[in-house]
């Protein structure tokens, strides 16, 4: 549905020529299992393909990321890649990179800057992820009404307030469920993307409302926390309360295959191969699309059981 690409990818580059590519990669941080898998994928692929990777962990701070990018420029790397901490505010440093003739590739998250400042953006679309989740709920509305009172009461476990995935996933989800009047988000609260947060918020929701039909969690971890809370309340997750999450990390997939989660929208962290490939293309002067979507799907319990064995993360 997405990936309306095709803005031409600008000029060529200084290039390295001597074979080994030096890539500077500024990661957001290591805030989740998803992110570590992402980092690992990039580091492993770089090693396998002989790319000299300069890696920095910005620990969630944009200023650290900017400083890291600036140091890559000073070190004259061949290509810079980074997952922006936030969408805005990278114009200045991207301009410096451009002036130094170093191509930039964005991964995972987009930036809100002049598209000519970077070559391409590789990553998933958070809004689409939310939409997929919402669509599934609309499609399965009949089953979802666990207590059969005619309305489907959804509680939402949001990600970190202000974070792009949280905002976009909520937006996509809301868009889709608007189609069905019986579906209503009755409570929504941040669980900070963590299991502990998800559990505590869910506990409270369960105490104050006994007509919850569906939980929509912005990531697997909060969903897993919610499962624990639901079990502690003496209910059966996946049956008494339906659960939809996003990410498809291994623990989530396991729960899904056990029927504790009902639906997971995948958000693939294994960007390494695609990134290295793009980098090579960019350095070779090939055209690359301005927007490269990661290959992602969504899983039901049955599908999860099938793919679980060879999930890498």
């Amino acid at each position, binding site marked *: 549905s997405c990936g309306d690409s095709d803005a031409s990818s600008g000029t060529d580059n200084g290039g390295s020529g001597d074979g080994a590519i030096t890539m500077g990669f500024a990661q957001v941080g290591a805030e989740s299992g998803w992110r570590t898998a992402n980092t690992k994928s990039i580091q492993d692929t770089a090693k396998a393909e002989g790319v000299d990777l300069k890696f920095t962990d910005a620990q969630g701070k944009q200023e650290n990321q900017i400083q890291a990018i600036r140091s890559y420029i000073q070190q004259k790397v061949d290509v810079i890649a980074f997952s922006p901490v936030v969408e805005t505010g990278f114009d200045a440093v991207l301009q410096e990179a451009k002036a130094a003739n170093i191509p930039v590739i964005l991964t995972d998250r987009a930036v809100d800057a002049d598209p000519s400042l970077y070559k391409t953006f590789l990553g998933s679309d958070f809004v689409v992820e939310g939409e997929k989740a919402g669509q599934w709920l609309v499609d399965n509305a009949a089953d979802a009404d666990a207590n059969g009172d005619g309305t489907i009461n959804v509680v939402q476990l949001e990600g970190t*307030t202000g974070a792009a995935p949280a905002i976009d996933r909520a937006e996509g989800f809301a868009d889709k469920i608007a189609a069905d009047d019986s579906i209503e988000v009755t409570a929504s609260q941040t669980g900070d993307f963590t299991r*502990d947060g998800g559990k505590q918020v869910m*506990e*409270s929701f369960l105490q*104050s409302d006994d007509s919850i039909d569906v939980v929509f969690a912005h990531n697997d971890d909060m969903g897993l*926390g919610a499962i624990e809370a639901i079990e502690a*309340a003496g209910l059966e997750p996946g049956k008494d309360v339906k659960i939809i999450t996003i990410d498809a990390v291994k623990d989530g997939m396991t729960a899904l295959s056990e029927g504790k989660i009902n639906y997971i929208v995948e958000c693939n962290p294994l960007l390494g191969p695609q990134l290295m490939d793009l980098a090579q293309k960019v350095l070779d002067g090939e055209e690359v699309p301005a927007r490269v979507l990661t290959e992602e799907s969504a899983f039901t319990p049955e599908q999860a059981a099938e793919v679980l064995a060879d999930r890498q993360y």
Partner: protein
Amino acid sequence: MTETTTRVQRVLRHPLLWPVLALVVLVLVNVVARPSFLDVRMQDGHLYGNVIDILRNSAPVMLVALGMTLVIATRGIDLSVGAIAAIAGAVACTRIVGAGDEAALTTAVMAVTYALVVCIVLGAWNGLLVSVLGIQPIIATLILMVAGRGISMAVTDGQITTVNNPFFSDLASGFVLTLPLAFLIALAVLAFTAVLTRRTALGMLIEAVGINPEASRLAGVRARTIIWTVYAFSGLCAGMAGLVIAANTNSVNANSLGLWIELDAILAVVIGGTSLAGGRFSLAGTFVGAIFIATLARTIPNIGIPSEINYLFKAIVVIAVCLLQSPRARAVFRVRRTPRPPAAGPAPTAEPAPATAGVRA
């Protein structure tokens, strides 16, 4: 001056009055928003309800805050508790996962013991930096705050490690005598600490060191040993908190476990009436403070405050509680024409003893 008036006066002057009052008000707010808030019922052989959740969820902050109370009493501060908690969780979980029989009781016991020993060592390390090398507590513990997260990530290799051990899980979710085990653990540590400090002379010596280190040294108090012990104890408490948090979700996320718990703990300590300037401390106050923090956390989803207003709400509550607690503020707000209370003169003098110590030592 009848018997009753003096008793009322005594209650009014009791240091715990205001924290308790704040807690009561907060609970009332919740009850008004949702009348079923205080309902407790039996379920699966244990109690179930908001109150029970609050007690259980208060355990980690309470544990950390107990250690923090003693550290603060010696004029210190421990920023590394969150990182130590993460290390404890990481060590225990990787041990359990790596053990032969993942679900065995001995596995859980060994893992927990191992993790706690590590935490004591880390706490002692903080104590070493503060008491022997004389590095300022905030910086000494900042080092472990930064590096500790890295260590815990190194232990788990950055992955969220999930464990399947019912005994470990019981640390957070288990019930004993229908009450949450986590809360009982915190209560036990509270009792232990109270006995340790108030039944022996330790509490008084800690306070003396916190109020006037140089005078205490000259009176023969082993300030170094005391400071060292207190940090090690704080490490131990943080470790227990980390285990409870990890057990709560049967997993450890090295990056987020115990993040910012130091602020919550310090807040709990201060709400409980212990001054950050060191000296006199109140464990009972810390207990109330921790319950307060947990209740506050529950209040937000309970009365349905939107995520983007969470902080604003917290700010207002914190300011309100502190104003309630400050005698000066109460005096200002009280509609009486009496001039300033005499205490408005020289504030309790935190003497310049450290400076003197610096020159003389």
